[in-house]
C-alpha cells in the first residue's frame, strides 16, 4: 500500500542521519527467550511469511490429511474443498511448529492419523486416502456417534483436526467467501449497514 516516505519532512530528516544504530539481531535476543531458535522469533518481518521450522509430516500422512480435510470441508456452492486452499500444507506447518501448544496437537494428530488409517484398512481393506466417499462418510458418522468404539478412539482427534482445518480454511480469502466475510477492502466512508441487514435484525 502506501509506502511513501514522510515526504519533505522525512527527506529533510534523513539528511540529518549521521549513522544508523545497529539493533540487536533477532537471534541474539532469542538466546534469552524461552523458545528455541527455530520459532518465529520476537521480531519477525511481518510483511513476509517465513516458516523457520522444518515440516515433519510424511507423504503418507499428508495424503490422509488432505483426504480427511476434504471430507470435513468439501466443495460446495460457497467455496472450494479444503485441499484446494492449502489446508493440508497448513496442518503440516501447524503440527511442525516448535511451540508447546502445537507440539501437543502434533502428538494427538499424528496418533489420530495413524489410527484412522488403520481403521480404514481394517474396515475397507485400503488406506483412508484411497477409500471411497461413502466409506469416508460411514467412518466419520461412526466417530461422531456416541457409544461406538470409533467414537471412543477417534472423536477427540476428529474434533481437534476439524477445528484446526476449519481455522486454516476460513482464514484464507476463499474461506472468507465461504463464511460470509466480505471485508479487508478500503472504503472512503463507513456507511450504515445495508437495508437487508437491518431488516434481518429488526432494526429497519
Amino acid at each position: 500500500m502506501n509506502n511513501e516516505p514522510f515526504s519533505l519532512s522525512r527527506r529533510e530528516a534523513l539528511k540529518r542521519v549521521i549513522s544508523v544504530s545497529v539493533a540487536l539481531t533477532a537471534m541474539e535476543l532469542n538466546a534469552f527467550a524461552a523458545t528455541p531458535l527455530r520459532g518465529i522469533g520476537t521480531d519477525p518481518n511481518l510483511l513476509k511469511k517465513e516458516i523457520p521450522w522444518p515440516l515433519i509430516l510424511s507423504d503418507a500422512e499428508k495424503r490422509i490429511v488432505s483426504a480427511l480435510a476434504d471430507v470435513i470441508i468439501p466443495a460446495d456452492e460457497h467455496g472450494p474443498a479444503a485441499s484446494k486452499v492449502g489446508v493440508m500444507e497448513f496442518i503440516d506447518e501447524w503440527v511442525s511448529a516448535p511451540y508447546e501448544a502445537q507440539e501437543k496437537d502434533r502428538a494427538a494428530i499424528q496418533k489420530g492419523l495413524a489410527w484412522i488409517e488403520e481403521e480404514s484398512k481394517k474396515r475397507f481393506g485400503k488406506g483412508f486416502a484411497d477409500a471411497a466417499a461413502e466409506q469416508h462418510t460411514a467412518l466419520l458418522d461412526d466417530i461422531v456417534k456416541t457409544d461406538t468404539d470409533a467414537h471412543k478412539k477417534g472423536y477427540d482427534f476428529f474434533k481437534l483436526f476439524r477445528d484446526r482445518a476449519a481455522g486454516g480454511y476460513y482464514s484464507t480469502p476463499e474461506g472468507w467467501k465461504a463464511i460470509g466475510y466480505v471485508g479487508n477492502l478500503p472504503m472512503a466512508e463507513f456507511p450504515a449497514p445495508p437495508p437487508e441487514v437491518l431488516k434481518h435484525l429488526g432494526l429497519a
Partner: protein
Amino acid sequence: MPVITPRKTLPNYDAIIVGSGAAGGMSAYVLTKAGLKVLMLEAGRNYDPIMETPMFQTNADAPLRGTATPDKHFGFFDATVNGGWTVPGEPYMVKREDKPGWHEASDWKATNTTQNFTWWRPRMLGGRTNHWGRISLRMGPYDFKPKSRDGLGLDWPFEYKDIEPWYDKTEALVGVFGSNEGLENTPDSSNGSLQPPPHPRAHEMLIRKHAKGLGIPVIPSHMAILTKPINNRAACFYATPCGRGCSIKANFQSTTVLLPPAVETGNLDIITDAMVREVTLDKSGKATGVLYMDKASGKEERATARVVVLCASGCESARIMLNSKSALFPNGLANGSGKVGRYLMDTVGSNLGGHIPALENCPPYNADGTSAMHVYTPWWLYQEQLAGKLDFARGYHIEIGGGRHMPEMGVSLPDSKAYGKKMKDDARRYYGASVGFSGRGEMIPNEDSYCELDPNKKDRWGIPVLRFYWKWSDHEKKQAVHMQKTFAAIIEAMGGKPGRVETDPEKAIMGGGTIIHEVGTTCMGADPKASVLNQWSQAWEVKNLFVTDGGPFASNADKNPTLTIMALAMRSCTWLADELRKGNI
C-alpha cells in the same frame, strides 16, 4: 525515524527524554517546538510503521494463521517488537498463587496466569502506542478529586478545568473521533476538538437498542483514529486492524504523529537500543543527565542535559529512580516521600461474551469499520451510587465487541459433531453471531500494590529489576461481579445466551496488570511528604527532574490512561519550557 549513535551526541542538551511512547512522544513534541534541544533515549529498536506495517495482509499470510505464540503474545501481526508479557533478557519478579517465594515472570498469556502481576513491555520506537487500543476517554471533574468526593484514594493537585484546554489541544493534534453527549462526569470536548464518529455496525445497533431498554446508554466511542484527514495524515479507510499499526497514519502512534514533527524541528536527536540505568546528579542534588547501556556496543554511556524527563512507563520510570541511589538519595532519587513505586494501579477488567440467535444467518456485509468499537457505554450509575444502592465505589465503562471480523483460527462451530456440508452451513450461520462485553473500571490506589527493586535479580545489562506486590480491594472485586451481571442482562435482553457468568468476586476480576494500564508509581500531589511530583510532574526534591508518563496519576479512573498521559505531558512540558526560559530550573 532517523537515529544517531552515542558518539554523535551533543555535549549538552536542554532535555533528555527517556522513552518514546505516548509520554515521550508528546514531551519531545512540546519541548522541540519550544526550541529546546532534546535527546531521546529509547530502550528498543528503531521502528518505522510506514515501511513495516502489514496492511491488508490476511491471516493466511502469517505463520500459524497469525495465532499468538510464546514469541508474539498478541499474534503475529501485533505491532509489538521484542516484547510482550516477557522481554528477552529483561526479567521481572512476581509472586505466584501456586508456589511460595519470588519467581521470574514467565507466563505469556495473561488469562489463567498464576502471577500476581503481569507487565506488558515492547522494545521499539513509539512503545505501546504502536499497538494500543486507541480508546481515548477524558477523565472528568469527579476523577481528579475522588478522595474529596468519597473519602477513598488520593486527590490530584489540580482540577478538571485546569487540564481541560490541554485535552482539547491533545485531541485536535492526535485526532480523536467521538461525540458530545452531555453526560455526567463524561466531559464534552470543545468545538472542533473531535472528529465525526463512524456509523455503528449492525450488532452495535442491536446492542444499543436492547441496552437502552435496561437504562444503559450506548454512545459513539472516542478513538484516536482519523475519520477526516489532518496534518498530512490520511483518514481511516476502514480495513486492516489498528493493532498492527497504520502505514497511512490514520490512527495515533507516537511514531507517525508526534516524532516526525519533532524531528522536523531539527531539535531532536534519537538514540535507540539505549537502556537507561540511572539519573546522574551533581553535588547540589540537581540532575545532570543519565547513564545508559548502549545495547549495540554493550558499553555504558553518559548523556548530559539541563533537564531529565522520564517517560519510560510508570513502572520503568520508577525503576530508574529507585536505581538512582546516592548519598543524597539513599532510597532512590526524589524518594524522600517513600512513594516511588507505590500506588501502582491497573484497570479493573472483566469480560463476558454471548451467543445471539438474532445475529445468525445475517446477510454478509462489510463490518470492518475502524476495527475498534464504534460505540461504548460510559459509566452511567453515578446517581445510584450516590444514593448508596451499589456495594462498591467508583465505576466502569463497557467496551463492546463482536461482529464480522476477518476470520482467525477460532471458528464458531457449536455443533461439535458436524462435518461436511452441515459444518460449512453452520460456519456461515454462526459467523458474527457472538457479542462480547469488556468492563474496564477504576481501581483505587492501595498500600499493598506496588513495585520495588529486587535485591538480587538483574537484567541482561546488569540493572536491578523490579518485583511486584499486588492486591485488589473489595471495591474492585465487587465491581467486576457487577460487570458480569450487567453483561449477562444485556445478552439476555437481546434474546441471547451468555457464556459462564462469574459471580465469585475472586474469579470475576482479571489479574493485576493484564489491562496494561500501569499508572501511579510516581504519584503527584499537593503535599511533598505524601507524593513524588507536584502538579507539573516535577519532582519535589529535584527541580530539573520530571516524570510525564502514567506514573504521576493520583487516581486511575475507568477512562483509559493514554489520552490523559498525553494531555498531562503537554501541560507539564509547556510549563517546563516556560520555566527553563525564565531561568527557574
